[in-house]
């Protein structure tokens, strides 16, 4: 009864107050919505921005274009006079809104969602235009409520551009400026065992703070939104490791990974295509934790940490073998304390000086504007490849396959034979040079900090690092007690040396991994081939040395070893000719039909990574300039049907051409008809003739 009465009263009240009250009726709302304009009017033919403003109740949120694991994006349905047009919503970068084990993307607080509004040229100045819209949005806290708002905005049509709206002009401008935009970024994605690697490089990422980097996909099925996105920095950009979403199941993968890359208050639109990562997207490790570690340290503390870091460096796999051998040889001077001291000091001077020279070089490069960090030596794939081979050679030497002088420390002790002091100095230099690859992963953040400081401060940190590095050796040479406690040289050294080979093999393996990250599987294969050649030449050299020791002739073997090593080195540093590489698009029967309908000659390469003859054909025929220019001339569409993984469509297609496997090369002419099957062994000439024929028939 009371309810009925209330209803009647409400109805009466509604009648009395009139229409506007209707819009306000209903239960308490969680979002107050209105339309606002950046300008006080709009001229005929002009485009200005208007925005849907949402004032969202505290603790509640609305959604971005991809709402994440649940929810729904805000929508605006416009009712405009004839000739008036609006764009889609220009979405500001969203925020992450975790809900239990799920993740949503959306907005909280006061939000402006801008839209471009274009007036028709026929709009008449002096008139007023009414823009009506129904905004629908889901607003959620723990629970979700769909809300609608019928909104309206009236703007005068002005003869010329109207002035900015005093209240909203600036605010809309700020939102538009900050909105994600394309920024000439190269992006590629690649499924890997530990997730989908999304690699992005470009000028705007160089030197940017990547600690908060995050990829918001436009599609909701491509990634697991709630999974952590692991960040790996590179000299030119970054690589995010994403947990694949449903879109990667059932042997399928998305054609494109499009979305917004947000970092440090900025946001860029990216569209990653499948393929190998662009160079420079990784190799520098994860970003240093924000506000933690060295960033807040004073110079004194940083120097102390550098000193400790230097001490720890002695234990690194690249360094320890050298120092251990040197220390053991020092023990040989047991009786000559003065000589030991002299050598210790010389070693210390050599290593500290080398550190300072490296630091000075870095500071100079930094001043010249290069965006580099410590470990910059490791950013170039050829350098990494050569270092890997050097590590391998050192390891093989420690294993006893061949000798250099007496052993590895010969690089220093070759000189040492002439003067112990000079020899020790060079051992110090060598130790730092060899230590460099190991410092990159372990010392990176600390040295990165040092490089952001003044040159003097940076030098102090590097000096401390060098001092820490040299300290143990110098200490041993100065403390007679320690020195006498070192074991005497003897047959055990041979055993010890062979055991020490394994950390060096480990270092080589690590560098190979770095190379795979930087340059991909092909360069890794090249490195491995070179490694086999290096091992072979090391063995040849050892053979030569043993023969020479036995009084035999061994020059031929030694020369052979040298030639092979040179060959291996050349192979890994030789720049690859990528100019002639054909741009392939992925194969699908629909795409073939589409291209044929468009009257394009179509070349389909049915291939697989494990098919050797396919790879040979790719290299000797398809990747030549002659073929590239023929494809270009005849506007040939080049499709790659990759059968590396099982694919029913491709298998059926192969069967229909009487093949059980790859390679198969099919060329379709511009005037339809059956495809021409090319021989399984291609030459550039065969391919060029086939595409010429396809453009005629």
């Amino acid at each position, binding site marked *: 009864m009371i309810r009925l009465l209330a209803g009647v009263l409400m109805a009466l009240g509604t009648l009395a107050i009139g229409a506007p009250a209707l819009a306000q009726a209903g239960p308490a709302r969680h979002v107050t919505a209105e339309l606002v304009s950046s300008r006080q009017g709009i001229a005929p033919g002009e485009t200005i921005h208007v925005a849907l403003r949402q004032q969202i109740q505290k603790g509640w949120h609305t959604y971005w274009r991809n709402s994440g694991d649940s929810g729904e994006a805000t929508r605006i349905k416009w009712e405009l006079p004839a000739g008036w047009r609006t764009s889609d919503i220009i979405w500001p970068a969203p925020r992450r809104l975790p809900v239990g084990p799920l993740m949503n993307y959306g907005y909280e607080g006061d939000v402006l969602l801008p839209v471009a509004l274009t007036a028709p040229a026929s709009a008449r100045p002096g008139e007023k235009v009414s823009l009506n819209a129904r905004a629908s949005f889901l607003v959620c806290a723990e*629970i979700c409520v769909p809300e609608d708002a019928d909104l309206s905005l009236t703007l005068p049509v002005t003869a010329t551009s109207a002035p900015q709206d005093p209240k909203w002009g600036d605010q809309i401008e700020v939102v538009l400026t900050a909105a994600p935009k394309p920024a000439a970024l190269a992006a590629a994605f690649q499924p890997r065992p530990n997730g989908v690697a999304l690699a992005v490089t470009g000028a705007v990422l160089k030197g940017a703070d990547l600690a908060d980097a995050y990829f918001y996909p436009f599609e909701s099925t491509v990634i697991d939104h709630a999974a952590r996105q692991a960040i790996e920095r590179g000299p030119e950009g970054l690589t995010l490791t994403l947990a694949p979403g449903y*879109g990667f199941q059932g042997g399928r993968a998305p054609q494109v990974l499009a979305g917004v890359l947000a970092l440090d208050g900025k946001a860029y639109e990216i569209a990653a295509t499948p393929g190998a990562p662009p160079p420079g997207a990784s190799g520098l490790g994860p970003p240093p934790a924000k506000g933690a570690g060295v960033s807040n340290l004073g110079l004194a503390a940083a120097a102390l940490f550098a000193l400790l870091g230097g001490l720890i460096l002695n234990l690194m796999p690249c360094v320890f073998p050298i120092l251990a051998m040197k220390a053991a040889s020092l023990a040989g001077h047991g009786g000559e304390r003065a000589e030991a001291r002299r050598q210790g000091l010389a070693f210390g001077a050599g290593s500290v000086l080398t550190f300072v020279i490296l630091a000075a070089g870095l500071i100079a490069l930094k001043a010249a504007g290069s965006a580099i960090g410590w470990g910059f030596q490791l950013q170039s794939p050829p350098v990494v490849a050569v270092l890997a081979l050097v590590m391998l050679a050192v390891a093989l030497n420690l294993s006893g396959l061949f000798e250099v002088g007496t052993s590895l420390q010969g690089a220093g002790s070759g000189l040492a034979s002439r003067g112990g002091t000079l020899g020790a100095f060079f051992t110090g230099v060598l130790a730092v040079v060899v230590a460099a690859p190991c410092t990159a992963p372990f010392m990176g953040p600390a040295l990165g900090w040092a490089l952001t400081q003044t040159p003097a401060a940076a030098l102090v940190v590097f000096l401390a690092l060098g001092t820490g590095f040299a300290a143990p050796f110098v200490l041993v040479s100065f403390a007679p007690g320690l020195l006498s406690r070192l074991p005497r040289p003897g047959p055990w050294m041979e055993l010890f040396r062979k055991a020490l080979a394994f950390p060096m093999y480990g270092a080589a393996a690590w560098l190979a991994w770095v190379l795979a990250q930087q340059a991909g599987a092909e360069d890794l294969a090249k490195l491995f081939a070179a490694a086999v050649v290096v091992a072979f030449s090391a063995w040849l050299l050892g053979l030569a040395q043993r023969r020479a020791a036995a009084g035999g002739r061994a020059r031929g073997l030694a020369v052979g070893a040298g030639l092979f090593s040179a060959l291996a080195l050349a192979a890994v540093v030789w720049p690859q000719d990528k100019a002639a590489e054909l741009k392939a698009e992925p194969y699908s029967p629909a795409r073939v039909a589409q291209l044929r309908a468009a009257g394009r000659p179509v070349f389909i390469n049915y291939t697989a990574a494990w098919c050797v003859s396919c790879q040979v054909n790719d290299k000797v025929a398809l990747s030549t300039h002659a073929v590239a220019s023929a494809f270009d001339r005849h506007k040939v569409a080049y499709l790659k049907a990759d059968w590396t993984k099982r694919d029913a469509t491709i298998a059926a297609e192969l069967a229909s051409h009487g093949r059980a496997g790859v390679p198969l090369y099919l060329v379709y002419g511009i005037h339809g008809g059956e495809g021409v099957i090319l021989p399984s062994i291609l030459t550039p000439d065969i391919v060029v003739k086939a595409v010429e024929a396809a453009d005629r028939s």
Partner: protein
Amino acid sequence: MNIFSRRTVLAATMSLGLAAPAFALPQLGQPAPDFKALDAQGHERSLSEFSGRPVVLEWTNSGCPYVGKHYESGTMQSLQKKETADGVVWLTVSSSAPDTQGYFTAPTARSWAAKERWSGTAILLDSAGKIGREYGAKNTPHMFVIDKTGRIAYMGGIDDRPYADPASLKGAKPYVALALADLKAGRPVATPISKPYGCSVKYNSAD
């Protein structure tokens, strides 16, 4: 071979913990995880008891507007009625934790079923979120179809209209109904995966 390598990769992902999913992501074509739960009648039910029959899993939350769209219009109940008459097992799962929206006890689940004229096989009470996490259920309604051999044949939304607005039902492509039709006809499911949509499942905040 294929199964093995995929599992190995998954296991490797988990053990590395690098980009491990926040919770399980079920795999299309793989055996659906078995489970045990009490239903609204107080009986213990399991997936394995229905082996040999197609099974539909429907995540629900009585307070969610997206669930409301399908129950107030009656489309959910009529699909339940039609499919169960056809021999399909329809399990409606509530993973809402206590004190969250849509939390079901046996009596509240029974009264909701009566009020909505719910027509499935059983309502499973999963307030601990165990089944939900096992299946990676994100939304209400999040739908799974399991084929007669116990493998996941479909997962995603109930249709292609991820909107709360009841007007969106018109002309929607009913993915679940289509998947079941494909299974009955012995065809491969044309759309085996779609975007799940709706409210978030109101899990307890144990993690």
